[in-house]
């Protein structure tokens, strides 16, 4: 026990002394959560809509008011101004050569990026047309559905479950958790162990009476502690800053995540037994863990859209099971009993990885 504590102390000191590692483990989760939360959001706020009326008979002013009331839309007259009190002045509706001018003008506004979409209201025929800049299909779809929603007429009454405001935070927080623990646990531990291989200090540890198991366990302990700290930070930020509800299942989320952390540590250990240099460890951890976690876990790209072979491949990506389970538990409020499949898969993977890693580790000492 003394030995173990001496080791844990040493590893903790290594982390504290290495500014780069320290920055990564402490700031990375915070920066990622905030970055994804506020900067890299897939939802679009402040879509700029211009309203053009073909003549003075239209109720363009009323329509503009309704659009402007939506928090996602900012509405202005195409040319002219809107006084905020249902009075809508549209300079271009007085033009005589409307027809040509109109399409040219709309084109111009969209090309210059002055607006994301233009709503043309034809009062005589009681029709409306939305002209959208579809160079970014994502924005275009959003604009169309926001405007359709704001106008209400004819649009189906859609009800969003679990995430009524369609906040992307609900989607990316579980995904980011899947990624962050892979980085902290798998990448950093493998690099930490391989660094000792590179400098030769691993021999010094192996030649001591300390069993390899204690050495490895002690090496992982500080990273495990850091991960728990990160978990607390992430959950707090997600809940208090991004407003993710946690659905009253914080305990289940924590339990799931602890299992996932152990799994990631096992991956880091396995990687470290396979390579000799820190660079190789980094690359292997990156290719074996981070890329699949980003691409094949459903974190960013929905797996349902992937070709069948990639979907099969994703079954071996731990993050896929973890992220799926966390979404269910954290966002939908299911209990651990509802994610037994994911739990079983993750536990199985952990056992396999640990067994493989320890077997490899012992082989090395031969």
């Amino acid at each position, binding site marked *: 026990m*003394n*030995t173990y*504590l*001496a*080791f844990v*102390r*040493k590893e903790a*000191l*290594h982390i504290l*002394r*290495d500014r780069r590692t320290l920055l990564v483990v402490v700031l990375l989760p915070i920066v990622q959560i905030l970055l994804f939360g506020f900067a890299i959001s897939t939802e679009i706020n402040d879509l700029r809509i211009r309203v053009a009326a073909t003549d003075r008979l239209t109720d363009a002013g009323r329509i503009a008011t309704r659009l402007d009331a939506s928090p996602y839309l900012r509405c202005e007259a195409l040319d002219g101004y809107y006084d905020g009190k249902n009075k809508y002045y549209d300079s271009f509706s007085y033009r005589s050569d409307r027809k040509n001018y109109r399409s040219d003008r709309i084109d111009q506004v969209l090309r210059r990026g002055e607006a994301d979409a233009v709503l043309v209201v034809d009062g005589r025929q009681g029709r409306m047309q939305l002209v959208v800049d579809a160079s970014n299909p994502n924005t275009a779809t959003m604009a169309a559905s926001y405007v359709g929603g704001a106008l209400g007429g004819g649009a189906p009454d859609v009800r969003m479950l679990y995430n009524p405001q369609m906040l992307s935070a609900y989607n990316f927080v579980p995904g980011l958790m899947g990624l962050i623990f892979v980085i902290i646990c798998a990448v950093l531990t493998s690099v930490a162990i391989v660094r000792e291989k590179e*400098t*030769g*200090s691993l*021999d*010094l*540890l*192996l*030649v*001591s*009476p*300390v*069993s390899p198991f204690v050495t490895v366990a002690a090496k992982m302990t500080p990273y495990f502690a850091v991960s728990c700290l990160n978990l607390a930070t992430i959950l707090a930020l997600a809940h208090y800053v991004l407003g993710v509800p946690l659905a009253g299942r914080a305990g289940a989320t924590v339990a799931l995540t602890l299992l996932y952390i152990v799994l990631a540590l096992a991956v880091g250990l396995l990687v470290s037994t396979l390579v000799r240099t820190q660079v190789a460890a980094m690359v292997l951890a990156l290719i074996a863990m981070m890329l699949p976690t980003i691409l094949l876990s459903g974190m960013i790209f929905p797996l349902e859209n992937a070709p069948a072979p990639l979907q099969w491949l994703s079954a071996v990506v731990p993050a896929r099971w973890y992220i799926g389970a966390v979404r269910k538990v954290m966002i939908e409020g299911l209990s651990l009993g509802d994610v037994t499949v994911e739990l079983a898969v993750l536990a199985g993977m952990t056992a396999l990885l640990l067994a493989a890693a320890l077997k490899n580790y012992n082989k090395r*000492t*031969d």
Partner: protein
Amino acid sequence: MTEPIIETRELTKRFGSFTAVDRITLSVMPGEIFGFLGANGAGKTTAMRMLCGLSRPTAGTGRVAGYDIGRQPEAVKRRIGYMSQRFSLYDDLTVGENVRLFGGIYGLGRHELARRGDELLQRLDLTDRRRVRVGALPLGLKQKLAFSVALLHRPPLVFLDEPTGGVDPVTRRTFWEMIDAAAADGTTVFVTTHYMDEAEYCHRVSIMVDGQIRALDTPDRLKRQYGAASMEEVFLGLAETAKRSSE
């Protein structure tokens, strides 16, 4: 008659079809300074790893500090000290932290550790620099500290793997004074080196060529046997017969 502290018989290590260590037989007595010489690639490191319990012999037997290296490597590890030139102490930890770590690894109790640690630092005149990171110490001092740390748990036998590599001659001389002092206290020193002047300081030396021990005796007798003026000549004469490339 006292028991040898290291005794091997036909100790062999093969990696696939490559025989790194080829049936070496040697014995080292307590308190002896034993020089383990050989060109790079001759099999020194592999042999030493087996003696330390790091690597399992393919064939043959070896006993170190009274335990079988193949069957009781853990018992062997508890009774030896080890220091290598390549790595000895953690640069990012302070002098005091390194001492504490290695004391802890070898299971010294808190009070025992504090007492021996203080004593060690005093002897090396490092008491004031207890909080200095090891990386900031001059190499020679670092090696002396590493040697002292390797002896912290008072092992009867210490393995030194090229302990003076890259160190200036003056420091090497004082380092060897420490080795002599340790041997005088009864600690057996098993040392590899590429410096032939150091080989002269050893009580006995062995010279490995192509995985085999080609010569084993006191430096004086070896010089006489090979009609050489220095250990350097003895070594070069034998190393030239190597068929294995040192690369």
